[in-house]
Structure formats: C-alpha cells, structure tokens
C-alpha cells in the first residue's frame, strides 16, 4: 500500500486536492458553523477585551486633544442644559404617547438580541452569536437599540450568522433626508464609509441632517437611522449632487445588536 502511494504520489495529491475542494464546496456552512459554535465564547471574550483595549489606546493617542475637547464639551453642556428642560417635557409627553399607543422598539419589530463575535479584517462584515437555532434567516435586517441600521444577514450557521454592514462596498439602498423631500441612493464604499448619490443638483442638502431608510423598496424597514450628512459635493461635471454620510453605527462602540425577525 505504502509503496503504491509512493509510486503514485502525484495521483494521491490530486485525489486529496479534489476531495478537499469537494469538502469546501458542500460542507462550507457546517464547517464554519461548528467552528463558531466551539469558539463562540472565546471570540466573544476577545471581542470585549479588544473593545476596551482600543478605547484605552484611542484615549492615549488623543491625549493632546483632550483639553480642547473638554472645553468644547463644557460649552456644549451649558447649551444643552438650556434645552434639557424642553426635552424633558417632550420626553414625558412622548412616553405618555408611547404607553398609550403601546409602541416600543420591541413593539415596532419582532427582535432577537445578538452580540458581536468577530469582525472581518478586510471587508465590512461582522459575525454575531445568533443563528438558525434562534430563528435567524438570510436577508434579515440588523439594527441597534437606537434603531440605527447596521446591515443585513448574509450567511446563517447553527449558532452564528454573518452580517454584511451597510458600509460594505457594493451595498446600495434608497434613503431620505430628514426635514426635506430629498430622496437619494446610499452606497457603501467600504472601510466604514457611505455616500449619497442621485440627488438633484438644484436642492440644498443641509449638513448635519439625519438620513433614514426610505421604505421597504430600499430592502430595509422604513425610518431606520443611517447617519448624518457630513459633506456635500455639487460640481458641474457631475450629473447629480453627492454627499458623504457619517455612519451612526460604530463597530468599536457597539455592544448589543438586534435582528429584526419579522
């Protein structure tokens, strides 16, 4: 047997390669699923340590800006205190209305709570700790507690799922800009960036305006928060006005996510 293998080494390698390729084609889902099931708790632990570690280093490297930041925050704080009273009244009214209409986040959607396990180093993808066992299926939308849109489920394993973030290159969906009638096409640019396109050139797009998903035709539930307009670009050579969006979802700050299951 051994001598036959030694004689036909090339054939053995070829058969082994074909066998491995077939395993990868037909068993890729179970392989990934088993791996995430085994190492889920370790991944979760590493994720939490990484999050606190990155916060520490971010503070360390930004130490020179802390004084200016602190002064700015104090100024903002004073301005916000003035508005607080108005907001408190509004909040009380809002709560009364919510109670009356029985409208919480959980009432708006049927949700499944999930924690982040890993992030893809190259693309804008996440792995969360909920899978088919928890009723997760492909194309479900993922949001945060504040109704900020995170992305969509693209791959489901037994106890984990892969989420494609809306910032991933190639993602396109329609959005609307708050307090205006402007509709636009949001595009993921990769590397945690989103831009808006197809906006008429003759309208003024306000900087700092909120961007929401426009409706079911966008592929997402309507009125989910995307971000704020950070920068606009309206040049003669472009047929449409463009804008850059500052995404509300920050991976490094994210703790719990919610999958909309209905």
């Amino acid at each position, binding site marked *: 047997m051994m001598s036959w293998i030694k004689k036909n080494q090339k054939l053995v390698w070829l058969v082994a390669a074909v066998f491995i390729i077939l395993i990868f084609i037909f068993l890729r889902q179970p392989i990934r699923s088993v791996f995430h099931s085994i190492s889920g708790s370790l991944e979760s632990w590493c994720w939490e340590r990484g999050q606190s*570690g990155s916060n520490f280093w971010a503070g360390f490297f930004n130490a020179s800006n802390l004084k200016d930041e602190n002064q700015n925050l104090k100024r903002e704080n004073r301005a916000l205190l003035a508005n607080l009273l108005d907001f408190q009244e509004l909040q009380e009214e809002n709560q009364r209305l919510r109670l009356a209409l029985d409208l919480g986040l959980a009432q708006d959607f049927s949700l499944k709570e999930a924690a982040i396990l*890993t992030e893809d*180093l190259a693309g804008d993808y996440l792995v969360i700790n909920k899978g088919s066992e928890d009723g997760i299926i492909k194309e479900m939308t993922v949001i945060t507690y504040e109704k900020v849109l995170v992305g969509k489920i693209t791959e489901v394993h037994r106890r984990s799922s892969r989420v494609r973030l809306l910032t991933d290159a190639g993602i396109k969906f329609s959005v609307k800009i708050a307090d205006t009638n402007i509709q636009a096409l949001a595009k993921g640019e990769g590397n945690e960036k989103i831009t808006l396109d197809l906006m008429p050139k003759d309208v003024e797009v306000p900087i700092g305006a909120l961007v929401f998903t426009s409706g079911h035709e966008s592929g997402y539930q309507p009125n989910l928060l995307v971000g704020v307009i950070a920068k606009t670009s309206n040049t003669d050579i472009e047929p449409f006005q463009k804008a850059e969006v500052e995404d509300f979802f920050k991976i490094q700050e994210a703790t719990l996510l919610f999958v909309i299951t209905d």
Partner: protein
Amino acid sequence: MQAIKVIVSFIAFYFLAIFQASYLSHFKIRGGAWNTLLVAVILVNFFEKKEDKSGLIIGALAGFYLDLFSPYFMGIFTLVGVLIAFAVKRAKPLFDPKRFASFAVIFFSALLFYEIIFMFISAGQGLFFNISGLIINFLAGIIIYWMVRLFNVISKAKIR
C-alpha cells in the same frame, strides 16, 4: 518533527485566528490590520529548511483559518496560503537568506502578492487595494524578523 510542527501550527493558528478576527480587528488603521496568520506563513516558510515541506501544509492551515472568518468562497484563502508558501520557498534560493535585504524583498513581494489576489477576490464589491494593511504587515514582519535574529544571537552566546 514535521508532524509535530504541523500539529503545533494547527493549534496555535486556531488561537491566532480568533485573536486576529475578534481582538486585532479593533485596531484597524485606515482599513488595514495586522494579519498574523499571513505574516506567520511567510516567516515559517522563509526560515524553514529547503528540504522541509511542512511549510506548505502550514500555509494551507493558515489559509483554512482565514477562510473560516472570511465571507468569500471557502477554500480561496487555503489556496492563497499554499501559493504564498510555495512562492516563498521558490524565491528563497534566488537570494542570500542571511541578508536582511533578501528577507525584506521576499516578505514584501509575498504581501504584495496577497493584497493583489485579495483585490481580485473582492473585486465584485469594487477594486480596493489595502495599502495600509500591506504597510502594517510589513512592519510587523520586520519586527518579528529582528526579534528572531536577536533571540538566535542570545541563545548562541549562552551555548558558548
């Protein structure tokens, strides 16, 4: 000896893959992060003896773990891992492996090869060349290279 090396790599790469995907992903700089598995594969194959073939299996193992965490077609990084291991092994005799410049050229070429392949793998989502990833991994490789050399010098001095 080769079997032990592969088994140790199998276990070590498992933890390295989790560390990379769950911990190091928080420390991205302009979209690039330290790809520990890729750096390990290149270093192992660079320092390995010519007749030792376990570097190829280690390349496949590292690629397999990268596949587990990637959203792309499974097996693609396994293939890339083997190709990089093979390329490093083939390129090594063309240079003087004791010189740092040789290491730098081979290491940089391997990283460049990986980034170009990765650019085509993810071409469906737009062409994006991750230059910061290339720089971070190159710097990490150089640091580890000098640490290994320093460790060798110290251990030789102790033997004397």
